[in-house]
């Protein structure tokens, strides 16, 4: 067995430490070690985005980062989008606008959307499409995903929730 390294990561607001093999991918750490199965694995080459998480608020592909590289950093997975039982506006909107079908790309897609809204509260359709272009979906054709992110944007503007979006996208 390879030697292990100890890491400490803040995941969805909770400090987690673990001994990991240096070659363990972050996505495997989250899924297998922490039991957070929201990030999915779809391609191994950073193309599909099913494994998208937020690292210090920025969407990254957790299949293309080693767990050890996340040491000392802050991670938000889809499980961290819901706060005290309240859904993030993006989550509500995905359901409302039928922005998902099989659900496999959905966690990554919602995180990409939430991160966009955290930095740009009123994005254009083109900006939305660009922001989710690292996330592949085979079911929806993206149209309802775009609609859902637009709805979430309106909802966050309407109820002063952009701050919450920022929180989700930023320090978890």
């Amino acid at each position, binding site marked *: *067995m*390879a030697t292990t390294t100890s890491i400490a990561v803040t995941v969805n607001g909770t400090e987690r430490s673990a001994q990991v093999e240096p*070659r*363990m991918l972050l996505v*495997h750490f989250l*899924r*297998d070690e922490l*039991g*957070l*199965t*929201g*990030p*999915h*694995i*779809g*391609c*191994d*080459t950073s*193309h*599909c985005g*099913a494994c998208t998480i937020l690292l210090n608020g920025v969407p990254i592909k957790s299949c293309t980062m080693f767990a050890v590289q996340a040491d000392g950093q802050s991670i938000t*997975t*889809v*499980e961290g*989008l*819901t706060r005290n039982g309240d*859904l993030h506006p993006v*989550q*509500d909107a*995905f*359901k*409302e606008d*039928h922005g*998902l*079908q*099989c*659900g*496999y*790309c*959905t*966690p990554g897609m*919602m995180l990409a959307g939430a991160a966009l809204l955290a930095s740009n509260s009123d994005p254009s359709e083109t900006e*939305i*499409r*660009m922001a*989710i*272009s*690292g*996330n*592949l*979906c*085979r*079911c*929806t*054709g*993206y*149209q*309802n*995903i*775009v609609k859902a992110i637009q709805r979430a944007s309106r909802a966050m503007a309407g109820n002063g929730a952009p701050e919450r979006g920022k929180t989700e996208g930023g320090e978890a």
Partner: protein
Amino acid sequence: MITGQELGGLGCSVKRKEDARFIRGQGKYVDDVQLPNMTYLHLVRSPFAHARIERIDTSAALEIPGVLAVITGEDLAKANLSWMPTLSHDQQMVLATGKVLFQGQEVAAVVGETRFAAADGAAAVRVDYEELPVLIDPHQALEPEAPILREDREEQTNHIFHWESGDREATDRIFSEADVTISQDMLYQRCHPAPIECCACVADWDATNEKMTIWMTSQAPHAHRTVFALVAGLPEHKIRIISPDVGGGFGNKVPVYPGYVCAAVASLTLGRPVKWTEDRTGNLSSTGFARDYHMRADLAATKEGEIRALRVKTLADHGAFNAAAQPSKFPAGLYNICTGSYDLENAFVEVDGVYTNKAPGGIAYRCSFRVTEAAYLIERAVDVLADELGMDAAELRRKNFIQPDQFPYETSLGWTYDSGDYEAALDRALEIVGYEDLLREQEEKRARGEIMGIGISSFTEIVGAGPGKTFDILGLEMFDSCEVRVHPTGKVLARIGVQTQGQGHETTFAQILAEELGIPVADITVEHGDTDTAPYGLGTYASRSTPVAGAATAIAARKIRDKAKKIAAHVMEVAEEDVEWKDYAFRVKGAPDRSVSMADVAFAAYTNTPQGVEAGLEAVNYYDPPNLTFPFGTYVCVVDVDKGTGEWKVRRFVAVDDCGTVINPMIVEGQIHGGLTEGFAISAMQLIDFDENGSIIGSNFMEYLLPTAVETPTWETDQTVTPSPHHPIGAKGVGESPCVGSPAAFVNAVVDALSPFGVRHIDMPITSYKVWKALREAGVAD
């Protein structure tokens, strides 16, 4: 009085029940299954497309810490499991013995304590190969000098089957006397469904209870259970297949793959759970590909544009094993639906299947058994004819449509279409897109040297197999099922024989029940995918869930209603014949205010049963459809072409679909968006290709391109509604129509754009480079 809207019945855009877990990241997919003491399996794959295996040395692998076992084809052969039957009267190697026949073929399986140990072990398995001549071009497969690929078969030829349909002589006669004929070669390229979730399983052998549980990415869990029972010799009641949430299927998850069998064998051997998760390269290079039909379409017509006959000759590349997922009596699936929406005098179709050194498959990728190839062929050929005749493509279609009063319509190739109004869908699509204005705009642009194209596709689909006597998978008749239980408090648990991969069954099947039982959708749970609990069914593919299991659901609910009516009469103290089901309640005829709800009756069914009536309120139905259903529609695509780069962009895409009765408009629209996007992907970028050594080009998402949100056009959808006369609720199925109907619309649009330069056809995927090359040859590229 409760309304259908309040219930969430037919026609309501009910929000999906399944979304609650998906939006929280709580979907449970196979790779999310974690069992105590679980081990991991990694496959060793062949780097060569055709090679003899001289030696497999597993000793170094076994020395790696954490490696528990290495399984080879020779090991499997001892248990008679080194080969398994395919769905198409052929057999396929589970792990290679003797030689490998395609790059990426499974050669050995390594089981480790961790996924790392298994992968390390797989890298340490040493296989010595002697390379053999490679056969990639299907046209060469039948030439005398071609290497014979399959040593296991009695017939030493690369020819798999010849299949034909229709009257060759009568068709040839029409061609010999026709005013006008056209002939067009076209390739429906090899592509792959590539759901974002790859295939996976967790096999868990419980030695105490002698029971095998397999969590599996399966579109057909019951059929897979039976296959496991027949192949592995395990008693069927001791096998439980659970297909949990599935991350997209599109036909990819219909076959049984070697990884599943290896995991089951490993679990039996080790007595521990074994997880196998495929990586993307494994998925794209070894699991079921689609299409690879090399087609020639001939049309005969009068000079006025009356299409008289269709003649089709096709070479089908099936790869190394014939693992096409087709009903067993249909080696080319439902390809002879290729007369499409048109009233022809005659037609003749022939297909020859051949082996090559490529992955096996021929699965129905978002398609009802080769209907996609058929729809593309006829819709492309009609455009070629329009070009030949100098006729407007819409007018040519209109002139030849089967008319509404001709239904049920018997095609010259033997299908009986249930219902249709093709002109209505065409008219609607042309109206929405503003066809006349577009034609004018195109004329003006052409005069200015700008390039735009308009493409039409007026497709007819064939979905919803059975009937069981005609359609079977490995002998299993293609019925489907639903079991309904109404609890004493009027809440419902229903289980269905089909299995969702994102289509929303948990919602739409609840809506069928809500409509039939007068019980709100919120009070109905629909379960599926677990063979220990769900009634037997053939699974979800070929758009058969709604046509077959949807019908079973309605019929099961009506059985409940029949029994409930007796109880209602008892509760209301009237004769049964004085009771009617109206406005979602049992009412006394002539006194509709005297009523009881289904929930009231359910309570009575457990607390106050009439004499002679069995307690409880349950029903099951196994539905064998009397015919298939025939959804249709017209799609219109408008493209603009950049003269400098050859890039073509979809400016408008209008899709008018008719799938009969609509259960949930929101979900139907979502299905159409998704299917159009896959159709766009196929026409623009999806290609599994091979170099001369048989090395796959397209084994990852760097080479096998899928559209992102940036490339994907915006879809405009609309509908006409022509119910199926034979389906209990008139529904026809919709999941595949957009993927079946749209490729021809895209290609027709691009070819129309280039037609002033003499271009009559371009094979898919239509890349910018192909367009640019055509423009350059015509001397018009910037």
